[in-house]
């Protein structure tokens, strides 16, 4: 009963956001119903569409799963963008250094490098919070900027494609990376690649980590209540750092998959982070929130947002509606999901069975 209700609330939030979006579509002069039909048809209506959606969902899911872990430990990670970039850079470097290694070894190597790069970047913010009490919200945002500049520096410098230098065009991108590192296509003629499977495995792995291992137990205990954790002998600083490292690792894998699953098989920068990440480092937070910070529920959540990205283009083509509408729709979903937490809490409390608990009553006494 309770879990059904927990499922119903985010669904209602999404529906309400879609209704609001329909009003917006209407005021823009488009037919809302056919607009949505176009959108979701493009995203989920065909194998090709679904393949696109799945590919777009990969970074969203990976970052979202990482956010689940961080938020469960009560650490706010706004640094997904930077962690994706750092993961991608390290993975790219490994691919450049060992081009001849066979696929079976090279692909795990580059993914691992991505994880390590992202984890390192997350752990910096984690350690700053754990030992120097630096707000992780500020440090992760700022590390995003550092990571982007580092990417620009490397891609214009030592990692740049020698051909670009020779031609004098100087586009900041690497050479075509070793084909051995290409993520294999799953269905012939479509873009869906191995990254989809990896993202799903990571989501399941994160679930196992959080709820089946003692490590996850420690992370959650620290997140729920640091005093109780300290009482039990769980190190709060270590676990805060670990939470951000895990979160960063997932984002780093996402970054690596963006490089090795791309059409060009290069790492390219346009000077900012969005050009590379597509803002997945931020949108992953939305994915996790809609999923109730649950790694498994993040899968449909990521598919929804990935689908909206794919559908947005179709919507723009067919209904002549600006694709920015999708950004507004994303925002609406966040607003509704976050505010629905209030109803969820109220429901939970009304179902409480304690007789002698004084917590809420005490509040009332204070107010009275």
């Amino acid at each position, binding site marked *: 009963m309770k879990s059904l209700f927990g499922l119903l609330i985010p669904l209602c939030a999404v529906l309400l956001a879609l209704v609001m979006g329909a009003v917006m579509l209407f005021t823009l002069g488009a037919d809302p119903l056919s607009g949505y039909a176009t959108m979701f048809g493009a995203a989920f209506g065909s194998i090709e569409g679904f393949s696109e959606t799945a590919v777009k969902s990969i970074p969203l899911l990976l970052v979202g799963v990482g956010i689940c872990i961080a938020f469960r430990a009560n650490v706010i990670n706004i640094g997904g963008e930077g962690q994706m970039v750092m993961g991608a850079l390290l993975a790219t470097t490994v691919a450049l250094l060992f081009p001849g290694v066979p696929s079976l070894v090279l692909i795990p190597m580059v993914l691992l490098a991505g994880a390590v790069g992202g984890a390192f970047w997350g752990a910096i913010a984690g350690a700053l919070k754990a030992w120097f009490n630096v707000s992780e919200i500020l440090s992760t945002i700022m590390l995003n900027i550092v990571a982007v500049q580092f990417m620009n520096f490397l891609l214009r410098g030592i990692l740049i494609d020698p051909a670009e230098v020779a031609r004098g065009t100087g586009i900041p991108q690497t050479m075509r990376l070793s084909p051995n590192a290409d993520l294999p296509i799953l269905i012939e003629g479509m873009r869906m690649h191995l990254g989809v499977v990896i993202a799903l495995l990571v989501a399941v792995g994160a679930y196992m980590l959080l709820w089946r291992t003692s490590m996850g137990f420690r992370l959650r205990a620290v997140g729920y209540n640091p005093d109780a954790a300290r009482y039990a002998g769980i190190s709060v600083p270590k676990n805060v750092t670990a939470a951000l490292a895990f979160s960063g690792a997932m984002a780093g894998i996402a970054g690596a998959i963006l490089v090795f699953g791309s059409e060009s098989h290069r790492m390219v920068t346009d000077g900012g982070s969005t050009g590379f990440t597509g803002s997945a480092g931020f949108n992953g937070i939305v994915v996790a929130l809609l999923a109730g910070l649950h790694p498994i529920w993040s899968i449909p959540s990521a598919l929804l947002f990935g689908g909206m990205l794919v559908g947005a283009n179709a919507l723009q083509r067919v209904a002549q509606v600006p694709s920015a509408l999708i950004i507004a729709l994303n925002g609406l979903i966040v607003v509704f999901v976050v505010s629905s937490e209030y109803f969820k809490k109220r429901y939970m409390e009304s179902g409480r069975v304690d007789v002698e*608990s004084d917590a809420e009553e005490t509040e009332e006494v204070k107010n009275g």
Partner: protein
Amino acid sequence: MTLTNINIPRLQLEGMTKIYPAVIANESIDMTIAPGEIHAVLGENGAGKSTLMKMIYGVIKPDRGRILWNGEPVDITNPAHARKLGIGMVFQHFSLFETLSVAENISLAMEDYGSLDDLSRRISEVSEEYGLPLDPGRMVHSLSVGIRQRVEILRCLLQQPKLLIMDEPTSVLTPQAVRKMFATLRRLAAEGCSILYISHKLDEIMELCHSATIIRGGKVTGYAVCAEESAASLARMMIGRELPTCSRKRPDVEGQECLRVNRLCKIAADQFGTSLERVSFSVYSGEIVGLAGISGNGQQELLYALSGERPVADRGAITIDGESVGHLNAAQRRELGLGFVPEERLGRGAVPGMSLSDNGILTAHRHGMVRKGLLDFGRAKRFAQKCVTDFTVKCGSVDDLITSLSGGNIQKFITGREILQQPKLLIVSQPTWGVDIGAANIIRQAMIDLRNNGSAVLVVSEELDELFEICDRLLVIARGRVSPSVKVEKTSKEEIGLWMSGMFPGGPVDTNKARELQSEGCCVD
């Protein structure tokens, strides 16, 4: 006592009923309190006492039933309304804002108190008058549990109530201070104030109260005139059977020194804390040592140091089985056989957002609940279930959130969790605070059994009755110093009460000063 001659009762309850989704908390409860009557409400944890009191105080709304106040039916809508009628309540759990001072907290519940300075002066006056010394300017977060309760009591007294509801008010006072408070209450009653007194200490009820209503499972199961009953007969009415007794029998073997504290010094973490000054004592295997003292005298600091939550620089200052552990954290000390029950149940002894079974894993994971980094939920559940069964924890299932339990049941669960791990050294703070007598006896017996199996037990408590019942030796802490130990047979509550005011060999207070302080019932500040 001619209470029956007074025609109009101060308070009359008729058919009070409160139904929650899962339980009937109160079922048709009738009760009558005359002006100037001190009336006890007796019942085990979860019997529905607090629910009933909260209905009287307007915190929760009854589903059925009628309240007559001075003969007039009233519908008490909220606590402010209750206060306006002249009902004051001292809660078992505190309703104070930690970031405000004592005077500011009290001002929140008062109307026209003049300036904060005036109020502070009145607080000082009334607190002196009733023997509950208190500094109105102190911030609440820096106060110990005992002093916080004092604030709550004073807050009510300042409003000159016609009916005072007291929920276990004496658990944190010295015997001298309890006597003083009883004198206060008797005076209040003589002035015509009625008192509803909730307590699990039967001898106190026998001493103080005129009559008692006994509640079991949400229903009134008896009414007693205290003068006609004995503590044992009241207990029988309350728990519905004979009171289980503890067997104190102690094996005669001399144990090894298990815990040794050697000149432990610790500067308090915050400005209102108590610094520890050269604290030295030992606890041997096979004995229970009690540490008495009014809260706020360094117990918190000492327990943080002993548990490993705040390790100390001098690693040799604390040894367990001869091994220096001062620098080790809580987990490392647990590996050496330490078990610890803190004073704060939720948010330290247990994680509020987790289930009973997860809260079992919290400290008991060493006992086969983790294999190769994976949690074994079957074992965790069985362990939690054993805790629930052995310590009569009232709960739905071990998968329920720990926050769905009442305070006393959480305490039983946490204490059970630590005891079931069979620690070599168990440190317990306030083991039975707010726990009903039936369960308190189970907890005490479990500690005694643990001792008989050769463990060392250190009990930090403010309840002398309890310490005298279960301990072999006693220590007293006052202002960050610990007294020499004394065998229970060779001392008295009076002597320990004196020591609690700091007057012991090497204590912080010289003899004259101690007498002075003790007459104020105080040794804080």
